[in-house]
């Protein structure tokens, strides 16, 4: 027990040296470390360095609603083409279905066949055999029901969240925020961490808009005073309150076909505009539309609001255009950013926000370091005074423990939070538990009359089972805490868990090595316990 093979001593020294090496990068600012060094650092949590934490939720109900609206539009067109009369076409988003009644019961099979064609395969082309996303059934009285399949909806929702994640990332990149962390959380949420951002309002505004831009034609014959718009047309508001436009539902060109958008100023009037260019598909479609509709008005619709509705003067074939509305520099710029980044598949809501200014973070770091220093001195003194030499050995092991914790956190590139610092401070207290157990045991064995070497050996051996048991309970508690999991609290669980694991090694193996070196040098007749 007290004998250490040479290679073991070397291995222990190696572990400590490695700990030093791995912790070193934390002493230097990230920028000053050459990129060829595989250096990893601990990063400070938002509560310590300041920044903004946003939890966004993707409105999945909107995904269902949109798909149902699309189906309703499709149903209208197809049934009209097939000359099938119908009544009561209604979407029911709560039950994820669409119902209608076919007037002539004899036409029901034809209607079902026509409607079935609208279904998208639920899986990808690579996975045939997956049921279609729409299930069409009919009843005796001519009622036809289109139900969205559960699996397809789930796939669609998951796709929407993934896509939103990508768009959120692009939009935030566009604002030039560095080191932003964007990650999916759970089924329908997106976590955004913005270090150093004190005022997240601009980003919240950017993320709060769907930014779906469409180019559509106006229905010039529609009566704006009518309570219900004619089929295939909707009344949309304009920029100025009270303004309404009869916009056709059919989307001629979609914002997804844009290749670029930039804010700029109109050379003649000096007003702010957004210049955009289409990709090849968009260019072709836009050219066709404008050629066929010269002299008629068309609308640029953004998030169900008409930004502008100019009359087409001549065919636009160059694939470039300009949106003028009531923009100022900031809003033109924002729109350009949103158009470049693309539209969100569904609206996002901020469900949790935590923003901390840098001052509070600096205060927190100072408070944490003071607590650490005071706690460490108290604990060191207690240990040294209560257990003498064996206590001082334990203190040295504790310092190594702190060093190795730092190294482990660096390797994991862990984020240290204020509760994380608390975890480190508490580790000071728990780490010594193992040594207290060992020292008490050695003392007991000595009192039972064992000679020094045998008492030391018995102390380390007999305490080891207890140490294992008691540390495992700590680890179980921390695993539960981690599972509860929300940013800062997780940081606490991680530091305490790492501290506990490292401590099992430093408190036993390392202290035993110290004791064995001391014992071989001094050969004491009596143990100082």
């Amino acid at each position, binding site marked *: 027990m007290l004998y250490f093979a040479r290679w073991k001593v070397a291995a222990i020294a190696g572990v400590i040296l490695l700990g030093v090496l791995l912790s070193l990068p934390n002493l230097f600012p990230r920028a000053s470390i050459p990129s060829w060094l595989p250096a990893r650092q601990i990063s400070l949590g938002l509560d310590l360095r300041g920044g903004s934490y946003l939890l966004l939720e993707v409105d999945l109900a909107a995904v269902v609603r949109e798909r149902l609206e699309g189906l309703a539009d499709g149903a209208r067109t197809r049934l009209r083409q097939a000359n099938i009369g119908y009544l009561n076409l209604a979407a029911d988003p709560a039950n994820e279905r669409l119902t209608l009644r076919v007037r002539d019961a004899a036409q029901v099979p034809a209607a079902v066949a026509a409607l079935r064609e609208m279904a998208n395969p639920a899986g990808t082309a690579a996975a045939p055999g997956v049921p279609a996303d729409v299930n069409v059934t009919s009843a005796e009285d001519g009622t036809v029901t289109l139900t969205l399949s559960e699996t397809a909806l789930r796939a669609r929702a998951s796709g929407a969240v993934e896509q939103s994640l990508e768009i959120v990332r692009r939009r935030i990149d566009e604002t030039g925020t560095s080191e932003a962390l964007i990650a999916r959380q759970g089924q329908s949420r997106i976590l955004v961490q913005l270090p150093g951002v004190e005022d997240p309002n601009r980003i919240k505004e950017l993320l709060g808009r769907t930014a779906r831009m469409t180019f559509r034609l106006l229905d010039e014959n529609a009566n704006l005073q009518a309570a219900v718009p004619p089929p295939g047309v909707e009344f949309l508001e304009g920029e100025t309150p009270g303004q309404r436009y009869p916009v056709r539902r059919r989307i001629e060109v979609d914002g997804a076909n844009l290749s670029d958008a930039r804010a700029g100023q109109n050379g003649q009037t000096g007003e702010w505009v957004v210049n955009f260019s289409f990709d090849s598909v968009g260019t072709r479609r836009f050219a066709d539309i404008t050629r066929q509709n010269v002299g008629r008005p068309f609308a640029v619709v953004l998030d169900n609001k008409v930004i502008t509705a100019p009359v087409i003067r001549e065919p636009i074939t160059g694939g470039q255009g300009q949106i003028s509305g009531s923009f100022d520099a900031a809003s033109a710029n924002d729109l350009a950013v949103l158009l470049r980044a693309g539209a969100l598949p569904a609206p996002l809501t901020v469900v*949790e926000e935590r923003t901390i200014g840098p001052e509070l973070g600096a205060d927190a770091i100072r408070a944490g370091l003071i*607590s650490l220093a005071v706690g460490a001195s108290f604990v060191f003194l207690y240990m040294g005074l*209560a257990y*003498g030499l064996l206590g001082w050995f334990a203190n040295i092991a504790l310092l190594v423990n702190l060093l190795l914790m730092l190294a482990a956190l660096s390797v994991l590139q862990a984020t240290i939070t204020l509760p994380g610092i608390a975890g480190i*401070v508490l580790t000071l207290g*728990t780490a010594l538990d193992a040594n*207290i157990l060992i020292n008490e045991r050695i003392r007991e064995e000595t009192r039972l009359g064992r000679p020094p070497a045998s008492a030391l050996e018995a102390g380390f051996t007999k305490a080891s089972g207890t140490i294992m048991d008691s540390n495992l309970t700590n680890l*179980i508690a921390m695993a539960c805490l981690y599972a509860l*999991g929300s940013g800062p609290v997780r940081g606490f669980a991680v530091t305490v868990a790492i501290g506990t694991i490292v401590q099992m090694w430093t408190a036993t193996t390392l202290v035993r090595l110290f004791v064995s070196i001391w014992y071989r040098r001094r050969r004491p007749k009596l143990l100082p316990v």
Partner: protein
Amino acid sequence: MFLARPLFRLVRDDTAIPFMKGRKLGIAFSIILSVLSVVLAFYPGLEKGIDFRGGILMEVRTSGPADLGALRSGIGSLGLGEAGVQEFGDASTVLLRLPVQGDEGATQTAVNQVRATLEQVSPGARLLRTEAVGNRISDELFTGSLIALGLSMLAMMAYIWFRFEWQFAVGAIVTLLLETTKVVGFLAVTRIEFSLTTVAAVLTIIGFSVNDKVVVYDRMRENLRKYKTMPLRQLIDKSINETLNRTLGTSVTLLLSALPLALFGGDTLAGFAWTMVFGIVASTSSSIFIAAPMLLFLGENRLRRVTEAPSPAARAASGT
């Protein structure tokens, strides 16, 4: 090298306090405290923090001493529900609280309204911290915390059951319940906010507390093997006394590390650290007075079933 020898002992090595004598009193006292704590947890109830209640919390630093009255009336006029405005730390720092708004969108609108009002009422004020938690999130965090607490108890019980006999597991879990309820009572009395950090403190206490119990139980198991004929009552007393220095020693080092956090850790950690301090004291005393004595009730005969010397009648029957 005077430092090489220990300078003091927390308790003398030959300490033999008859803890078991006071076991009924101790357990009765503990149950009364716990019942009281549970009552307090519902009436007046816990001060739920923003994590669990939802709503808006803003820390504002004004240029010069803050005019609390103006802030209160300014924010009150927004019609966002009962606004809490209080000084926080020093005269120029104010903590604003607003209840949860209808849905998340409304909460975000409210944040912006309050910002605008602050700009009017107290020009130059800076927002040090903004937290806005929607009601769905707070509900989820609350249930999540309860699940984590429950799960940790079950895990601890399973672990001790696996490592020891079931009596130890039941003893530990009952003690743990008594302790955790007292911590809840402490939160209710001190009005420390019940938040995610406090739950972290409670979970940490659970970990340390079981750790404490395991050490005493470990010693009991060892002694059960060593002293085959010693009455259980005496054996438990012996085990507690033998491990007393360790139990107290570990608690002292823990206290010495938790106290600086409570005193210098700042407002965010103070609640966490004081809960820890209380929990350490509670768990240490219950390790001594509750957890081990409880075994006497549970295991008077059973814990000895394997090691008990066979009775004369049994010996005669087996014909040896």
